[in-house]
């Protein structure tokens, strides 16, 4: 019955794959547990015809469990039909054979009232109980338990939502972002399997629906990776260590581990975005609806709600930026850029419906109109506010439409201990950091004086690692070559294009020279100055880019030690230039 179930799960054919594989695994386990139920009833002498049932919660309840997932089982009883001794005897007859078989078991015995009490006091238990499924016994008992828990969950949504969000936030801080980690926890990291389950739990409050389609596919993909990892290690683990990545990649049909990590990053970003959107909409549902947003009756006529105009054809609706009634995405190629700049300026998130509409915008002409470039610059100048906007535009495919070169660095992992982000996310973070670095008082005397110079360093920040493509040797040299056509498409002035190319080509010069050359040697300062064409303004821009780049790599890349060396070199280069 249970003997050999552990091995049978691992040896189960993985084709058909995906959800059908997991359903087949669930059926295998369900069959064994049903047999166990009847056997346990016979051995304990308990009549299990009514008032008691065996159920699965968590992943097995969702039929999502993998080949090494633990069994999360609950014995539910109505508290009346059986004595406590009978319930205990049946529980013993159930749990011991499972333990003896070597399967990991998470078990509980609860009456209907206890189910409700536990769900109200223990958040993880409540989320698990939302997916409870009857395996054997009196399905009516379980139906009553599930209905009561769901009803409590919905009626207490206002109280439970902050609790759920706090635990989600704390988990993200503890485990990091799945999209950017080299050795991620597929379940617990932000954008991971548990975040998808939290999204379903939010939808179960009936405060809001959740996104469908892409997020379902992303969730199944993460489960596929988890199952491949389980098959490779034959252990219950969610942490995808480097040592296992080649085997997991091969099992899933990826060419190499980087492709695997890029695929995980994409799925994680979709899950994280879906969670954020669902949370935002759940919060909106809990707010008292604004009178402005309701259709009103004026002198007997039904008037449309009043929406605040934020920019041309862009209005605020219930805390989100949405398209105005006159917006025509198919005829307005600049609309997505204008919406992005407006979202950054107004700090309003783009509505998911608006993002879907923006996907219909036509391609920009080459070179871009000056207004389109100015919208993009407005986004780049907005500091940290631009990060979530880039995220949503990139997921919608708009960034690679503007810059096809972006596709080669999109979701690309960086196998360096100092880097915490994928290449594309690092680029966006570097741009955001420029804003912070140039605003700091200590940089006043060397910060770029002219707005045009500030813009130069923003362009350089956005594209400085665009050459980190597969197979690139010197990524700065490759980047210099790739960035030229991009800058032409953007319609930038010749001098700006030249300066951005120069910064991309030499963006590592200050950091590398400062830590590897004798700074007391006048020839070193002269060499760095010559690299920047003996132009103090370019040295100042490079200093800004160096810090923004290092800070975007991670907390280990920009230390007081490194800053001191870079500052000393910068001072000597500027002194050399008089």
């Amino acid at each position, binding site marked *: 019955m249970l003997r050999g179930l552990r091995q049978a799960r691992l040896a189960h054919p993985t084709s058909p794959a995906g959800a059908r594989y997991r359903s087949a695994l669930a059926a295998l386990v369900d069959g064994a547990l049903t047999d166990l139920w009847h056997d346990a009833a016979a051995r304990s002498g308990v009549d299990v015809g009514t008032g008691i049932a065996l159920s699965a919660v968590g992943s097995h309840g969702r039929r999502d469990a993998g080949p090494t997932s633990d069994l999360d089982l609950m014995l539910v009883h109505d508290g009346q039909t059986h004595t406590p001794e009978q319930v205990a005897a049946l529980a013993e007859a159930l749990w011991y054979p499972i333990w003896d078989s070597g399967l990991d078991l998470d078990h509980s015995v609860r009456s209907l009232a206890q189910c409700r009490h536990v769900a109200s006091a223990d958040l993880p238990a409540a989320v698990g109980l939302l997916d409870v499924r009857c395996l054997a016994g009196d399905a009516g008992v379980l139906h009553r338990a599930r209905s009561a828990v769901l009803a409590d969950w919905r009626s207490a949504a206002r109280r439970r939502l902050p609790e759920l969000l706090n635990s989600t936030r704390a988990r993200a801080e503890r485990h990091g972002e799945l999209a950017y980690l080299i050795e991620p926890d597929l379940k617990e990291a932000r954008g991971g399997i548990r975040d998808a389950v939290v999204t379903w739990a939010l939808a179960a409050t009936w405060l809001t629906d959740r996104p469908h389609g892409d997020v379902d596919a992303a969730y199944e993909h993460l489960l596929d990776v988890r199952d491949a990892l389980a098959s490779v290690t034959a252990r219950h683990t969610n942490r995808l260590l480097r040592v296992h990545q080649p085997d997991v990649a091969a099992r899933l049909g990826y060419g190499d581990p980087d492709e695997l990590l890029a695929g995980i990053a994409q799925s994680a970003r979709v899950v994280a975005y879906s969670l954020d959107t669902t949370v935002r909409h759940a919060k909106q549902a809990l707010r008292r609806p604004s009178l402005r947003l309701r259709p009103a009756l004026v002198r007997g006529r039904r008037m449309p709600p009043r929406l605040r105009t934020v920019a041309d054809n862009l209005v605020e609706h219930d805390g989100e930026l949405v398209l105005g009634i006159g917006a025509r995405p198919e005829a307005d190629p600049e609309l997505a850029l204008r919406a992005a700049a407006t979202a950054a300026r107004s700090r309003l998130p783009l509505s998911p419906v608006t993002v879907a509409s923006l996907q219909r915008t036509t391609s920009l002409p080459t070179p871009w109109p000056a207004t389109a470039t100015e919208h993009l610059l407005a986004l780049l100048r907005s500091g940290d506010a631009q990060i979530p906007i880039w995220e949503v535009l990139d997921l919608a495919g708009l960034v690679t439409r503007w810059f096809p070169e972006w596709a080669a660095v999109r979701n690309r992992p960086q196998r360096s201990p100092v880097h915490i982000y994928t290449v594309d996310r690092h680029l966006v973070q570097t741009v955001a950091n420029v804003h912070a670095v140039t605003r700091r008082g*200590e*940089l*006043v*005397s*060397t910060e770029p004086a002219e707005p045009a110079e500030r813009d130069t360093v923003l362009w350089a920040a956005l594209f400085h690692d665009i050459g980190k493509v597969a197979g690139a040797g010197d990524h700065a040299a490759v980047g210099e070559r790739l960035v030229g056509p991009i800058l032409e498409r953007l319609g930038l002035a010749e001098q700006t294009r030249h300066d951005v190319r120069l910064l991309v080509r030499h963006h590592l010069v200050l950091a590398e020279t*400062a*830590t*590897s*050359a*004798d*700074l*007391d040697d006048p020839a070193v300062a002269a060499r760095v100055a010559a690299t920047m064409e003996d132009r103090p303004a370019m040295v100042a821009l490079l200093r800004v880019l160096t810090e923004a780049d290092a800070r975007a790599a991670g907390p280990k890349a920009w*230390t*007081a*030690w*490194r800053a*001191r*060396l870079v*500052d*000393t070199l*910068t*001072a000597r280069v*500027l*002194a050399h230039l008089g």
Partner: protein
Amino acid sequence: MKLITAVIQPHKLDEVKSALEAAGVRGMTVSEASGYGRQKGHTEVYRGAEYTVDLVPKVRVEVLVEDGDATTLAGVVVSAAQSGKIGDGKVWVSPVEDVIRVRTGASGPDAL
């Protein structure tokens, strides 16, 4: 066994690493350090203002060696790190009671 500790100029790290590797050293620990010796209190002019540099960036290199190799290897570090200028750093040798390799549990010279 001895621990050789060297605090050197950052730009001398590559030369010291190469010299130690050429002398047969298979492992070392490198960390960022800040400090000063006799050169303390020099000033820099940066961004139009003069400021005092009291803690100068250095690199700390640590190597565990057998007793008989300590003097030779300390000399290797000194030769490689030397520029003859003030601020070149220091090298010191200290006794080590025991060393244990975490992976195998081997101790003493076998763990080096």
